[in-house]
C-alpha cells in the first residue's frame, strides 16, 4: 500500500518529559547555531498530558539546565516541598514515623517541588511549540519503519477508522509515514516500539532484565484544615509483607488537593495479590485516612514504572534512532523519581543528534555517542550510586534490605565496591495459586475505598468504539489452559482497570474476556503475564485515559 509521508530532521515518539525536553534542547542548539531544523513529536494521548501519570515530586536539576529561567517562564512548579515524613506502617491501624536521620539520603526532598507532571508536560509543550516544534497529539506511533539496510527511518502512525473486524469504516484514514534522519523513542515505561527495538537490535544483551512496578494513583480534594501544602508523606510496610516491595505516597499539592498512590514491585510472587486492592486498603491506615476523611476523590489512574536502575539500562543507540527516558528506564528507585532523569536523557539524545548533524549525513546512522554521553552524565552517576538499593530490598526484604540501603547510602555514599544483580524477570516470579494464600481484601466502603469500575470512570478513559482490540494474545488459549489452572489467571487482579475477566458463558464454560475499552495504558499486562502472551499495541490515536492534573 502506498502511504503518504512527511519528512523531518528528527521525529520524537511521545510528548512526555523526555520527548519534550529532547525537542526543546534540539531547538535551543539549532537556534544557537542559527540552523533550521524540522522536529516533530507525536503523542498517542488525545492531548499533551492526557497519558502522563507521575507522583510527582520533581527534582528540578534537569529543568534548571534546560530553562534556567523556568520561574519567569511560568513553569507550573508552584509547591516547594516543606515537610518530608516517612512512616513504617506496622498494621492496618498503626504506623511509626521514621526519624529523619534513619531515612536513606536519596529519599530526602529539600529543594524539590510537588507538581502535576501532566501540567509540567503541557507547559513544556507550549515552550516547544513556541520554538517551532510540531506536536501532534492524538496520533499513535504504531510501527517502526526500517530502511533497506535495516536501520530505523521513522515511524508509521496508526490507521484511523478501522472496524473491530479490521474493515475500513467511513472516514477511514490510513496511517502516515513520518520519516526522520533520527528518531527518538520516548514512549515511557515499556513502550511498545521500544520493546521491539530492544529485541531487534539486541539492546538488552549483557544487562539485567528490566524490573517494574505498578503505580496506582488518586487525586483527592480534601478539607482545607487538613491540607498542609508542600507536605510529602511516604510509607513502607503494611499492607505488604516483608517480601513484597512497594510503598505509598501522599503529596499535598495546590488547591487543597492531595496526590496519593501506591507502588508495588511487579516481581511479587503471590498470584492472588491485587495491586488495586492493596492500594485501596492502604488508605484505611490512619496515617493516610486522617487526611482523606471528609474529602472527595476526583481522579484515578495507573501506570507501570521501571525500577531496574543502572543494571537494567539497555544500549541506547541503534541505526537511525535513540532511546530516551523511561522507554530505556532511568528511574532512580532510591529517590523514587524518574522525571529528572527522563528529561536529562531526552536532552542528551538531542545533544547527541545535534552534534552528529553538524558532522555528516546522520540518516540511519547509529549514534553510539549517546551511550557515552549517558555514561558521562550525572544520570549515570546517580544510578551508579544507588545501584544496590533495589536489589538489597529484593534480596533481604524491606527491613534488612532497608537497613542495608541506609548504610550504603548514608555511610558509604553508594561507594561499596560491588554490584548486585537481579536476573529473574518479573513475569517469572509467580508461585502457583495452589501454594499461595488469598489475601482477605475488605469490600469497598465507597467513602475511602472503591471498586475498580468506579475508579476507572474517574480516569476519563475512552477508546473509539468498534476498533480492533489493542491487547493481542499470541495464543488465545493460554489464559484458560495455563494461566487459569496454574495462577488463577492473575490478569484479573494485576490489571488496575478491570480489562481482564474470566466469565461464565451461557453453557457455564469459562470464557476469557478482554474489555479493551477500559485500558488505562499502564502496560502491566504486557510485563507481568507469566506466559508473556499479552502484547500491548497502540489503539486508535486519541484513545486511552484523559488525565487532567495527574
Amino acid at each position, binding site marked *: 500500500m502506498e502511504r*503518504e509521508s*512527511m519528512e523531518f530532521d528528527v521525529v520524537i515518539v511521545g510528548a512526555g518529559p523526555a520527548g519534550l525536553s529532547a525537542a526543546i534542547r534540539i531547538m535551543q542548539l539549532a537556534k544557537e547555531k542559527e540552523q533550521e531544523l524540522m522536529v516533530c513529536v507525536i503523542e498517542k494521548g*488525545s*492531548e499533551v498530558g*492526557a497519558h502522563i501519570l507521575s507522583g510527582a515530586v520533581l527534582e528540578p536539576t534537569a529543568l534548571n539546565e534546560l530553562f534556567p529561567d523556568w520561574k519567569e517562564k511560568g513553569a507550573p512548579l508552584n509547591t516547594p516541598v516543606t515537610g518530608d515524613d516517612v512512616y513504617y506502617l506496622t498494621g492496618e491501624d498503626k504506623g511509626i514515623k521514621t526519624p529523619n536521620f534513619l531515612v536513606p539520603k536519596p529519599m530526602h526532598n529539600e529543594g524539590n517541588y510537588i507538581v*502535576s507532571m*501532566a*501540567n509540567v508536560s503541557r507547559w513544556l509543550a507550549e515552550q516547544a511549540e513556541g520554538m517551532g516544534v*510540531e506536536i*501532534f497529539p*492524538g*496520533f499513535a506511533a504504531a510501527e517502526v519503519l526500517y530502511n533497506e539496510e535495516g536501520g530505523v527511518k521513522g515511524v508509521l*502512525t496508526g490507521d*484511523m*477508522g478501522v472496524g473491530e473486524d479490521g474493515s475500513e469504516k*467511513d*472516514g477511514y*484514514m490510513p496511517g*502516515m509515514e*513520518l520519516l526522520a534522519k533520527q528518531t527518538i523513542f520516548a514512549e515511557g515505561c515499556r513502550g511498545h516500539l521500544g520493546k521491539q527495538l530492544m529485541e531487534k537490535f539486541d539492546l538488552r544483551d549483557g544487562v539485567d532484565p528490566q524490573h517494574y512496578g505498578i503505580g496506582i494513583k488518586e487525586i483527592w*480534594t480534601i478539607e482545607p484544615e487538613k491540607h498542609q501544602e508542600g507536605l510529602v508523606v511516604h510509607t513502607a510496610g503494611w499492607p505488604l509483607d516483608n517480601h513484597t516491595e512497594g510503598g505509598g505516597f501522599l503529596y499535598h499539592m495546590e*488547591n*487543597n488537593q492531595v496526590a496519593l498512590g501506591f507502588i508495588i514491585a511487579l516481581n511479587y510472587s503471590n498470584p492472588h495479590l491485587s495491586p488495586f486492592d492493596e492500594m485501596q486498603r492502604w488508605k484505611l491506615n490512619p496515617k493516610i485516612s486522617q487526611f482523606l476523611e471528609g474529602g*472527595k476523590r*476526583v481522579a484515578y489512574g495507573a501506570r507501570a514504572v521501571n525500577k531496574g536502575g543502572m543494571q537494567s539500562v539497555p544500549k541506547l543507540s541503534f541505526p537511525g534512532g535513540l532511546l530516551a527516558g523511561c522507554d530505556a528506564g532511568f528511574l532512580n528507585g532510591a529517590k523514587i523519581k524518574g522525571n529528572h532523569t527522563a528529561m536529562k536523557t531526552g536532552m542528551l539524545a538531542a545533544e547527541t543528534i545535534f552534534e552528529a548533524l553538524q558532522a555528516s549525513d546522520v540518516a540511519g546512522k547509529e549514534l553510539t555517542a549517546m551511550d557515552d554521553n549517558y555514561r558521562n552524565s550525572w544520570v549515570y552517576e546517580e544510578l551508579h550510586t544507588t545501584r544496590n538499593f533495589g536489589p538489597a530490598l529484593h534480596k533481604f526484604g524491606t527491613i534488612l534490605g532497608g537497613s542495608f540501603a541506609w548504610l550504603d547510602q548514608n555511610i558509604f555514599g553508594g561507594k561499596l565496591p560491588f554490584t548486585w544483580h537481579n536476573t529473574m524477570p518479573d513475569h517469572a516470579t509467580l508461585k502457583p495459586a495452589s501454594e499461595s494464600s488469598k489475601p482477605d481484601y475488605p469490600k469497598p466502603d465507597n467513602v475511602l475505598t472503591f471498586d475498580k469500575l468506579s475508579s476507572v*470512570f*474517574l480516569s*476519563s*478513559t*475512552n477508546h473509539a468504539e468498534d476498533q480492533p482490540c489493542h491487547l493481542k494474545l499470541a495464543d488465545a488459549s493460554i489464559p484458560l489452559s495455563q494461566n487459569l489452572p496454574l495462577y488463577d489467571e492473575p490478569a484479573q487482579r494485576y490489571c488496575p482497570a478491570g480489562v481482564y475477566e474470566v466469565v461464565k458463558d451461557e453453557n457455564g464454560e469459562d470464557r476469557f474476556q478482554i474489555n479493551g475499552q477500559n485500558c488505562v495504558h499502564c502496560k502491566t499486562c504486557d510485563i507481568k503475564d507469566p506466559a508473556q502472551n499479552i502484547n500491548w499495541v497502540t489503539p486508535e490515536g486519541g484513545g486511552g485515559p*484523559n488525565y*487532567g*492534573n495527574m
Partner: protein
Amino acid sequence: MKILVGVKRVVDYNVRIQVNPDGSGVATNGVKMSMNPFDEIAVEEALRLKEAGKAEEVIAVTIGPKASQEQLRTALAMGADRAIHVETDEEIQPLTGARILKALTDKESPKIVMLGKQAIDDDNNQTAQMLAALSNWPQATFASKVEVEGDVANVTREVDAGLETLAVDLPAVISADLRLNEPRYVKLPDIMKAKRKPIETVTLADLAVEQAAAVKVLKTSAPAQREAGIKVESVDELVAALKEKGLI
C-alpha cells in the same frame, strides 16, 4: 456562497465533570477542553457542502477566551478557510452569543450559518433559534440531512414523530443534530497547514455587542448520589418490597 460555522470550547465529552466545592460552577482547571461535538458535526457539514461545490468559503467563529483558538485551529485543520475569534473572558449567554453572530453575519453576509444544536456544557439549545429571530431568517434546527439547491436548502430534521423535511430560503440558520454526519479525522499535514491560516481577533466592543444578562446562575451542584439497591430472591419478595415503600 459563504458558510459561517460556530464552534465552542467545552469540557471534553470524555471528562468526568466535577463541580467546584463552593458550588460556583464546574471545574475547568486542568481539565481537557475540546470542540463541542455538535459543532464538529456542523463544521463537517459545511466542509462537505464546500467540497460538493455548493459553497466557496467556510469561516469558523468562536466566542471565548484566548485558549479557544485551539478549537479554531481544529476547525481550520479540518478544512475551514479562515477563522474569527471573538475574544472575551466573560461567561457568554445564548442571547449574547446570538447577538455576536448577528453582528458577524451582517459583516460577512454568509448564506448559511451552521451551528451545533446545543453545546454539551450548558445544554441550552437556544443560540441558533435566537440568531434566526434576530436576523429575521428562516431556521432549520436538528438537521440530520442538508441538501442545497440554488437559493434553497432542503433540511431533514429529527422530530419526535420521525423525520420532517423543510425547504428554507437562504440565507438561513441551520443547527446540526448528532446523525447529520460523522466528522472526519484530521490529517497531520492539514494540522501544519492550519497553523498558517488566518485567525482574525475581534472584541465585543468592536462588534458593538452588549452582554445580555438574561439568566443568573444561582448555584451548581452535583446530582444526588444514588442509594445502593437491594437484591430480592423472588417476585413475591419484590412485590412486598415495593408495597413496603408505598410504590404500588
